[in-house]
């Protein structure tokens, strides 16, 4: 009797708590944007049109963010806008950001993001459509040329919110700060000493890996590539090569996304990738992220790096690493017989919170830090690379900086035309690519009898994950 009374009291308390919580939640209408305090629309553009505002910006810890932070005092001086910012390591950045956006508090006003995150944030209504600002002459500095961005790069941030539809059309959800295509970086000192040819095909790459085993004694290995159990393993070198083999992640059949990871092209490519890991990868490949892969390459432990252009670049300035000055770049190796270069795109960009209460000030910030002037400075003095603006890349100052990195400009020029997002936009991107990375780890660990078996299983898993997605 006494026990049942206690249970009743416990349940009552729970019910009261849940009800009160919901009442509290209902009392604040979600998504309501208070624009009070935002500067009123003015006739004609002026950098000080939102003077006196304070905006909050969330940065991922990255050289792009560090360069912006250095310039914030100048921005404040010119616009009268105060900037408060937070800098979070990438490991936790997106968890923190997603929760902040979901709260609809308007904090942060601006945030760093990638294109893949937009596939989650834009359909949820977390990001503002930037076309509304770009199309308003009163809001755009006359010298701001949006057509100067490489079409493939800015196109990666346009999407019509329809799962399965390729990027490049629809509203603009963010502006690019920098981008990454994926190329092969190599240590030219090691290649010269061993008299090796730089590989241009995947078969040559595998053969060179055989030659480079323990090239510098125990602890050294041929090729640094990512292997951790998350989406970061799939999107750089793997997805670049996957698309170069002609494989796709999904097709649309009867309004549903159907995974194609077990297609002959996908399996052939994955077999090659697994061979590369087994012959040339780091012994603890399965824990390798961007940081370990880049650091091993810079330290001379790995002779090659198949990853984002800038990963090796940051290791090359004098004093940045043991092998600084010895690093060089070529376009990604292709399968035998292929000549067209594809590369998967990653864009570090900046987006505006739809719930921001300081949209004018936020837009000015966005405009300032994606302008040609700032982006040129960020390359020449701010330790950034891969400008998304054509005029910046082609400027003599930037060319002079990049020319000190052997083959960088050539690899950039060869890769940029074919650089785009090779994934199909869909809201479960992070889950499907994490499963993809886990399967790759399982295949390398020998948990499947064949690559085909692993990819067949992955296809089933991916189809289940995206079963609720209605594609067009």
């Amino acid at each position, binding site marked *: 009797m006494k026990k049942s009374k206690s249970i009743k009291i416990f349940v009552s308390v729970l019910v009261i*708590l849940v009800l009160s919580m919901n009442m509290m939640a209902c009392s604040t209408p979600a998504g309501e944007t208070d624009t009070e305090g935002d500067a009123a629309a003015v006739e004609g553009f002026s950098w000080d049109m939102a003077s006196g505002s304070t905006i909050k910006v969330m940065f991922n810890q990255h050289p792009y963010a560090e360069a912006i932070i250095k310039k914030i005092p100048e921005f404040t001086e010119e616009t009268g806008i105060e900037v408060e910012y937070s800098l979070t390591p990438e490991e936790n950045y997106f968890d923190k950001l997603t929760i902040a956006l979901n709260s609809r508090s308007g904090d942060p006003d601006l945030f760093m993001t990638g294109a893949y995150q937009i596939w989650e944030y834009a359909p949820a209504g977390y990001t503002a459509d930037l076309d509304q600002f770009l199309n308003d002459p009163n809001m755009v500095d006359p010298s701001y040329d949006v057509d100067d961005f490489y079409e493939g790069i800015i196109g990666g941030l346009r999407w019509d919110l329809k799962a399965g539809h390729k990027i490049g059309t629809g509203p603009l959800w963010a502006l690019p700060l920098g981008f990454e295509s994926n190329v092969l970086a190599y240590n030219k000192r090691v290649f010269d000493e061993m008299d090796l040819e730089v590989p241009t095909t995947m078969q040559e790459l595998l053969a060179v890996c055989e030659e480079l085993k323990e090239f510098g004694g125990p602890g050294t290995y041929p090729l640094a590539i990512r292997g951790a159990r998350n989406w970061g393993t799939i999107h750089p070198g793997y997805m670049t090569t996957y698309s170069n083999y002609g494989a796709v992640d999904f097709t649309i059949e009867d309004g549903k996304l159907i995974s194609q990871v077990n297609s002959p092209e996908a399996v052939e490519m994955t077999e090659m990738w697994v061979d590369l890991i087994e012959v040339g990868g780091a012994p*603890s490949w399965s824990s390798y992220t961007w940081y370990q892969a880049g650091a091993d390459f810079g330290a001379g432990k790995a002779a090659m790096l198949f990853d984002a252009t800038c990963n090796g670049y940051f290791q090359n300035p004098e004093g940045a690493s043991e092998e600084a000055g010895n690093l060089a770049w070529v376009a990604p190796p292709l399968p035998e017989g292929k000549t067209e270069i594809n590369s998967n795109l990653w864009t570090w960009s900046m987006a505006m919170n739809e719930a921001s209460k300081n949209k004018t000030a936020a837009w000015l910030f966005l405009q300032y830090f994606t302008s040609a002037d700032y982006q040129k400075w960020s390359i020449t003095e701010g330790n950034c690379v891969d400008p998304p603006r054509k005029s910046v890349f082609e400027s003599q100052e930037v060319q002079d900086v990049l020319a000190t990195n052997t083959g960088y400009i050539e690899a950039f020029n060869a890769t940029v035309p074919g650089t785009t997002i090779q994934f199909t936009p869909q809201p479960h991107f992070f889950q499907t690519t*994490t499963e993809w990375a886990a399967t790759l780890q*399982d295949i390398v660990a020998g948990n499947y009898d064949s690559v085909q078996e692993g990819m067949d299983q992955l296809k089933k898993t991916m189809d289940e994950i995206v079963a609720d997605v209605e594609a067009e």
Partner: protein
Amino acid sequence: MATSANMMKKTTKNQKNIKQEDNKIPFLVKARPYLIILPALLLTIGILYPFATAIYYSLTDFSFRSIDYKFIGLKNWISMFQSKNFWHACLVTVQYTLATTGTEMVAGLGIALLLVRESRFTKTLRIILIFPLMIAPVIATLIWQLMLNNSVGIVEKFLNLFGVFNFPWASSASTALLTAAMIDFWVYTPFVMLLMLAGLQSLPKSPYESAKIDGGSPWFTFRTLTLPLLKPFIFIALVFRLMASMQEYGIIFALTKGGPGSTLMNLSLTGYNMGFAFSSLGKALPYLLVLWAAIFFISKKLIGAWLKGQQNAQGN
């Protein structure tokens, strides 16, 4: 009649007097009983509120990908029980808990028995041995990753002396659990040792003196005296270690993020991935609530057994 009317009047008058006296009592005095229990009440609400909301959200399709969510009943729960990932996560949680708690309890007790005697050497060792406990598990994992590194790690160099090269450690499905459990062992064995040492030092001396006079062997003394007397401390250490091992997140996340493949995906990591990496909090919460329920019932059973043991010891 008249008497009863008088009595009525008298009672009403008394009640009025009581009310008047009541009004004279300062508010703070009257509120004192409520104020006394207020911190406990706030604490209870603080504990119950997230718990209650977790149950509520587990019955919704709440996702960070959307502002709106709706009540979907037991759909998340059914889908979890039907998922092979859930049963795999349960298995990993049990394997990890048994591997870590079992070894840590035995080693912690063993080390405590070795260090219970007072000498300068044991005092120094006690201090050194608790160093790992002062390091955050994630940092400890990063240190171990360096030590186990096949290129530069000191452990690899040591194994090379015995002809073992490139031991796969966390990168192989067959050795990943061993590697994670080894790091857990390094971090948390000192905790068990500290508790056991405190227990051993608090044991009464007289039974040991009697056992010595009667010629009891060290093993006999340990089995019939030390172990039974130490039971409360063993239970406390066991409850704490079981709870922490079942919830383990930091070491596994820093080591392999649950890989290779899904080798180390326990309930905590699967719940985290669902909730944050994949933004589906509604789907994640059943995993975490199952974990909570398992920890609650196991701890309750252990504490119950401990209390029963205490009562038996006191002859109640």
